[in-house]
């Protein structure tokens, strides 16, 4: 891993980093990845994972829920006529 990798990851994660922090993060990441590398020693070749993954469904019924749309709207960083205002995407 090198500084370019850190910059690339920061770009993917949408996080602005200072030059100093890039360097310190690089050394932290190396240490952490060095530690978690012990995972390589686990024998997994003949293991069939039994993930119990399944969808959770419920009836599409309307039930009243207490939440405040006012509180949600009040917290928009930018708004117009009660709508959230965002910068253009294209």
């Amino acid at each position, binding site marked *: *891993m090198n500084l370019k990798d850190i910059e690339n990851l920061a770009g993917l994660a*949408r996080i*602005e*980093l200072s030059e100093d922090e890039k360097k310190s*993060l690089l050394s932290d*990441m190396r240490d*952490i990845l060095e530690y978690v590398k012990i*995972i390589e020693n686990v024998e997994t070749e003949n293991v069939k994972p039994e993930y119990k993954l399944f969808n959770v469904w419920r009836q599409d019924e309307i039930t009243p829920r207490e939440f405040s749309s006012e*509180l949600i709207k009040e917290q928009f960083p930018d708004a117009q006529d009660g709508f959230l205002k965002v910068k253009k995407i294209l």
Partner: protein
Amino acid sequence: MINLTTLTIVSARKKLDTKEFSAVELVSACLAEIEKKNGELNAYLEVYDDVLDQAKRADEMIANGESYPLLGIPLAIKDNILIKGRHISAASKILENYIASYDATVITKLKKQGAVFLGRTNTDEFAMGSSTENSAYGVTKNPHDISRVAGGSSGGSVVAVAANLALGALGSDTGGSVRLPASFCGTVGIKPTYGRISRQGLMAMGSSLDCIGEIAKNVEDVKIIFKAISGYDILDSTSITDATYPKLSLKKELTIGVPWNLVNGKGINPKVKENFKESMKKFEKIGFKIKDISLKNLDIALAIYYIIMPAEASTNLSRFDGVRYGLHKDGVNLLEDYKETRGRGFGKEVRRRILLGTYILSAGYYDAYYGKAQIARDILKKEFAREFKNVDLIATPTSTSVAWKIGEKSDPVSAYLEDIFTVTANIVGVPAISIPSGFCEVAGKKLPLGIQFMAPHGGENLLFDVGKQFEEIRENKI
């Protein structure tokens, strides 16, 4: 005068019901303690301004003859559990001015019982840490020695209970965040079975690991809070029912499994080992069997954790983008808005974990890290299931040592290693409790130690029963 040091939820309930004191008097006593100590300890980030009104409502309910286990009981809530209309920040700058628009399910349940919320408590930012040093609003100090950390990430909630600033508290536990501070500060803390308590309204970190945990002075009090907030919730798709796991039949003769290879491993404070061995001897004396269960893959639990947790956290925290709520920094375009908002809003540890998770989930490394960790997690789960056929409980110390000095563990890996005993329960999904097991004197200060018990899925009642027995043998009452 109310003596908060000896007051428990159970004893407060009796005194409230018999009108020995009112809820207003009880919460006033807590507020006076907070006024005295919170400046130094930094347990609460905010004490609510309507605490007395809440207590008055509780007194009215009591006057009407109503009684619930938590009616009028003052509780502290971790700053990552939503209460409608109140500030909640996850101890982060990115949510500094955020106000919750709905109640977490656990809050709804506590409100129904008439519990009083004193305030929101400090935590590592987004619950990422083992010491509460990663908060954007300052470190929480250990009441037993203020030069030491409280443990984390639920440090504020635990200190609130340990320093008599509340009778009970809610925290969250992703890798030990309730149990580790409970051990460091001398309180009881439980992480329930995965899915046992609804997480609707808890800010997500590692979704396959996160649990809401309860903190109080003793096992019975923790049980009361647990009973109040557990149960199936249609709003949480990972929620379980009482029928999800088989009921454990309580045996007369219980066997405790101990992974001695891990307990006797390097890096464990000799005084911690000694204290733990004494506890095991006491159990043997009252007829428990102690069995060596050298789990083969336990030492890789921490590596699994530090792969899965940042991967899930980096995904969960992508929602904080400055578009709909929270901090917003304006850049030249939308992409720059994102980068500046997230770069300034997130603290250092959060940025570190997001980057780590992004790396782990990136195309070239996914199989080597995340894929491999998922299979290893499955192997560990099976190992645990096998062991729980031979033993009823598994016991370890909760932490490798006593609370460390503030600032002592500045490199991330040394702090991560502190979770070695606690992460396994989150990876496997089983319930685990930390109970004070004694003290260790360091430089003239008596610092608490903790013991951890893990039970099979759905086995909270076993933890409560054995936990209460342990409280008695600890005091040499049996």
